[in-house]
């Protein structure tokens, strides 16, 4: 049956329901596009034949192929769109710099899209809250205190805080830091929030 490759793309994403981004399946997409090209060409020639020779019995077949074309189109569009939703989520979970392993899973256009999204989000955040802007990816939950106790889960090197002091984030060291400076690192699993 036609459209078997297209549904493979959808299954691949559906299996990763938590929002992880599988590698961009260029090969599968190419095969779907090839199938679409073949379907389109066969339909073109059958349409011509039906018209010029009055062979109206070809119409059901033409319609059959046309359905398959539309199905392939829907699957590819949904595949690309769902990936964009995942890529957008990455900006909120990882911040503006993505780890190389994830970037390898994106195609050139997706990387470009991510950069554009990053930029428009940054522009928007700069326009908020007066001169300094407002980072809306911080404080996703109402903060209870300005400072929190954190423990380092891995070596992360030097880290500068508001007043200019530089501290060394060394594995298993414990620090009392401004919450907004740590939130991102906690999300990335570099720091661990220690509750008293």
């Amino acid at each position: 049956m036609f459209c078997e490759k297209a549904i493979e793309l959808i299954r691949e994403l559906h299996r990763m329901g938590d929002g992880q981004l599988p590698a961009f399946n260029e090969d599968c997409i190419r095969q779907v596009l090839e199938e679409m090209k073949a379907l389109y060409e066969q339909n073109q020639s059958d349409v011509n034949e039906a018209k010029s020779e009055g062979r109206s019995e070809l119409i059901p077949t033409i319609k059959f192929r046309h359905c398959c074309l539309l199905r392939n189109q829907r699957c590819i569009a949904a595949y690309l769109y769902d990936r964009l939703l995942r890529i957008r989520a990455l900006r909120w979970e990882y911040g503006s710099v993505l780890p190389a392993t994830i970037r390898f899973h994106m195609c050139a256009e997706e990387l470009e899209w991510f950069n554009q999204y990053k930029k428009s989000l940054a522009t928007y955040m700069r326009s908020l809250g007066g001169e300094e802007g407002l980072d809306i990816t911080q404080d996703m939950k109402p903060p209870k205190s300005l400072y929190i106790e954190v423990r380092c889960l891995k070596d992360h090197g030097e880290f500068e805080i508001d007043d200019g002091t530089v501290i060394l984030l060394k594995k298993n060291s414990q620090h009392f830091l401004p919450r907004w400076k740590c939130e991102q690192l906690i999300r990335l699993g570099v720091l661990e929030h220690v509750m008293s």
Partner: protein
Amino acid sequence: MDPSEVEFLAEKEIVKIIPNFSLDKIYLIGGDLGPFNPGLPVDVPVWLALNLKQRQKCRIVPPEWMDVEKLEEIREQERREDAFTPIPNPHYMELTKLLLNHASDNIPKADEIRTLVKDIWDTRIAKLRLSADSFISQQEAHAKLDNLTLMEINTTRTFLLDSLNYMYKLRSNMQPGTGPGKTQDY
């Protein structure tokens, strides 16, 4: 909504404190606070009360309803009646948790209060579920949810809305001819 956001809203409720320091009135966007005089009760939002309490700058006066007798009465009424009974504070659950966790030394019979509030909560949640079930099984079109608090609604919001939405869609199946006729999906 995340429960921590509901709790954040609850922190705007007003509570009486007895400060042990003096400070002139302070003017904030959210309203004026103070003046504070040692030993003189003053109304402040819960977030400030908790902050002062943590720094041992005040004693919190428990809200009137946070009282064993009053809560027992509410519990009995809640168990007796089918409908949700009016609750003395729209954030009773959050305030109980906040005040008991941070100022239990200012609240008489704190443990009993904790249990009573939990009982009231459980009774109300059981009622909420029962009414959700009868709502679905009778295929009702609308329901009155008087006297429910934000935290109560919040625990079941997505579940209830999704269920109603699904039921609505499956019911629309029953009206033939209202569908889109020729469909565009492939």
